[in-house]
């Protein structure tokens, strides 16, 4: 009894008086980085997963052929120490470093890469990101089952440490593609040991089984709670890795994440709750980071149903949105009003065509379409998936169209999967959407609008546009390629099957002790360059 009392008093003393050392302070001392990581990962198999939280984890655990410099996103040596490009830009030869090792001590060889590429392209694995490899010769044919012989696909092992990739076309963004996890290698003997190699449901990604070639190794994985990775002693560049551990917390709620950050439990968050942005801007601007991000928030327009099958009506709607006010008063996190679709400066490309904000012109267009002052136009429905952020933007746009064009608009929200289904079935009039580029190139934003493309989902089709996009993929001259994209985007904006609203920013909170976390458009932060440095007291 007495002991219990003593313990109770001691507990009170610890918790009550004096400030406890926070997790962040401990981390600063021990080089342990605590990261908010959105949501529980589906898996850690680079050939299975599709999400961003998974990306954050996999970049710690595995390494591809080529990395990207966190400051300027220039391709830098990764698993390959150097590479050569053929004169026509279609053949890449990678020279792997000989000192690269898997975490079980095996050397990383060209065969590992080749077999990994084979694995992700194998039809039975049904990898959703296999299309990222389609730039390679015959990769698509193999993945869709049209080609059975993998040796005809454009990958060739020249020797244990030399790998050659044959592309369909000169692809200027090829090296930055390699930074995507779909191009990462896995240790096939390990995969084989824990289940079928070319099917889902393999258990090799459990902490007790995992073998990787990245700067960190998987230590603990507790569902919905924490994933811990530890510095890998076998990593070829282990000397520069200063972090000892990274703890990833899958925190679904942004409010919960912010509170954890504020109480010193996290070094970096995934996002900032909307109402908190103003507060941090005002009171702790040094903790808030806002970067431009490779993505566009926009509305899709279903062009198959009247009255929106009429180009004038679509353009009128697009021109009557006050994007500046939305960005300034609603989203508030430095987003850029989008008057075109491809984010400005994507691989040096900024669209010249614009959808202006011009209410008078919009009214005129509407009148030309046969709806003077909005008369006779049936009620238009805006569909969005349930979320506070989408709701307020839809509400604002509803008011803008009402005020500027005298149009009645109804809002409809649907739960995520129902919304995806409605979108796919073209069972909507206008619906909210967002697109994040897979790689920094206009192609990632423009080829989705090809006739019948899986991500088109507007029913829009334009043969001239299709022609241009195909031409661009074959163009060898970068200058000429960009000119083609300009023409294509001009058509897209003129026809307005999409109404761009703003370009995304990434906004998050970060403790000042985190060093080497550089802003970039891909939100790419290789952990080998990150370390912690507590402020001197």
């Amino acid at each position, binding site marked *: 009894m007495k002991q219990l009392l003593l313990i109770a008093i001691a507990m009170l003393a610890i918790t009550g008086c004096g400030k406890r050392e926070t997790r962040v302070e401990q981390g600063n001392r021990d080089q342990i980085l605590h990261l908010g990581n959105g949501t529980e990962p589906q898996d850690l198999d680079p050939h299975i997963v599709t999400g961003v939280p998974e990306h954050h984890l996999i970049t710690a655990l595995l390494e591809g052929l080529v990395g990207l410099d966190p400051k300027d996103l220039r391709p830098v040596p990764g698993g390959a120490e150097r590479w050569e490009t053929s004169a026509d830009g279609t053949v890449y030869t990678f020279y792997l470093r000989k000192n690269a090792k898997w975490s079980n001590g095996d050397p990383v060889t060209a065969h590992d890469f080749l077999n990994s590429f084979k694995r992700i392209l194998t039809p039975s694995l049904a990898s959703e990101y296999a299309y990222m490899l389609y730039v390679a010769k015959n990769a698509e044919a193999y993945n869709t089952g049209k080609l059975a012989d993998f040796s005809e696909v454009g990958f060739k092992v020249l020797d244990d440490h030399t790998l050659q990739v044959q592309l369909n076309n000169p692809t200027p963004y090829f090296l930055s593609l390699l930074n995507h996890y779909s191009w990462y290698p896995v240790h096939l003997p390990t995969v084989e040991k824990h289940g079928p190699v070319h099917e889902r449901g393999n258990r090799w990604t459990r902490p007790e089984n995992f073998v990787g070639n990245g700067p960190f190794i998987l230590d603990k994985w507790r569902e919905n709670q924490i994933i811990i990775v530890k510095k890998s002693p076998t990593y070829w560049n282990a000397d520069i890795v200063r972090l000892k551990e990274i703890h990833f917390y899958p925190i679904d709620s942004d409010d919960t994440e912010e509170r954890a950050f504020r109480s010193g439990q996290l070094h970096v968050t995934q996002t900032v709750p909307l*109402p908190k942005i*103003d507060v941090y801007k005002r009171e702790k601007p040094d903790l808030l980071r806002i970067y431009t991000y490779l993505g566009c928030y926009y509305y899709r327009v279903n062009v198959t149903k009247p009255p929106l099958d009429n180009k004038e009506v679509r353009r009128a709607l697009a021109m009557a949105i006050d994007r500046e*006010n939305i960005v300034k*008063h*609603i989203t508030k996190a430095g987003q850029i009003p989008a008057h075109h679709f491809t984010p400005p400066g994507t691989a040096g490309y900024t669209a010249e065509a614009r959808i202006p904000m011009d209410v008078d012109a919009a009214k005129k267009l509407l009148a030309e379409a046969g709806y003077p002052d909005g008369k006779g136009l049936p009620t238009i429905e805006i569909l969005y998936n349930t979320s506070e952020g989408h709701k*307020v933007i839809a509400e*604002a746009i509803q008011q803008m169209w009402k005020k500027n064009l005298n149009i009645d608009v109804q809002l*409809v929200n649907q739960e995520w999967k*129902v919304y995806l289904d409605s979108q796919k079935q073209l069972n909507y009039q206008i619906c909210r959407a967002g697109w994040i580029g897979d790689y920094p190139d206009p192609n990632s934003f423009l080829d989705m609008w090809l006739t019948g493309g899986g991500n088109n989902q507007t029913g829009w089709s334009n043969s001239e546009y299709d022609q241009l996009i195909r031409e661009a993929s074959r163009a060898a001259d970068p200058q000429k390629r960009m000119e083609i994209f300009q023409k294509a985007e001009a058509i897209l904006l003129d026809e307005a099957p999409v109404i761009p609203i703003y370009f995304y920013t990434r906004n998050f909170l970060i403790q000042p002790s985190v060093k080497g976390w550089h802003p970039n458009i891909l939100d790419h932060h290789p952990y080998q360059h990150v370390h912690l440095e507590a402020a001197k007291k």
Partner: protein
Amino acid sequence: MPEAPELEKYAAHAMEDIEQGTSLWRDAWHRLQKNKLALFGGGFILLLALACFLSPFLGIQSYEEQNLTLGATPPSAEHWLGTDLLGRDLMARILYGGRISLSVGLAATAVSLLIGVIYGTLAGFLGGKTDALMMRFVDILYALPFTILVILLMVIFERSLLLLFMAIGAVEWLTMARIVRGQVLTLRRQEFIEAAEALGLRKRRIVFRHLIPNVLGVIIVYATLTVPSVMLLEAFLSFLGFGVQAPMSSWGTLINDGAKAMEEYPWLLLFPASFFSLTLFSLNFFGDGLRDALDPRASKD
């Protein structure tokens, strides 16, 4: 078995009740009038309902009119309860939302009350195999995934307020039925019910005259508990795209949104939550008063 004289007393009691008929309600009304707190509660709800439903005619600002440059502001002379993130008048939004929340709260509760009480009483009264069958049916409904059920309902039917009541009623009556059934099960074994049966009273009469009045207190308590959970459930249904559509509001959605910004814009939580709480308190006082008034034995204490 009870002793003979007692049995007679219960029988007399039972007969008395039957004779009383309409005067029972007049008595109840009389007793209710004497309960100040209950009257206050009832009056407040009436007043609030009037304000909500008449709000378009009271010259109150529009619930959807925005002022983006204004944004969220604390209470002021122009906006008595402040404005929300889009610069909309919060009072208008609360009053407008009250229409939805009050009608959902009261109507869906009434639906669940009706089904739950009748179902529970029958199960408890009939007992045996019928009871087992009826209760296993409740178990089945209990276990079915509500989210999926709602999504399916939305596919099958057009979005409407009536459907909203149905969906909510469909889940809320289950606990009510279980509680009533538990009460009836025990009451059934009490002397006065057995006496009534022995006297050969018809089953319907026993159920409505003797069983239900005796579980009324618990029913009313649980009904007042159902109202808030129904109002909040509406917010979840909105999430599934089933409740009210933006830019319309309801108390559930207002409180939900307000809770996210409670540190920055406390009035966005405080005012909707206050209306919500005041309504529940009033309802509660009224419910308690009603229970006391309807209890024929209370007056004899």
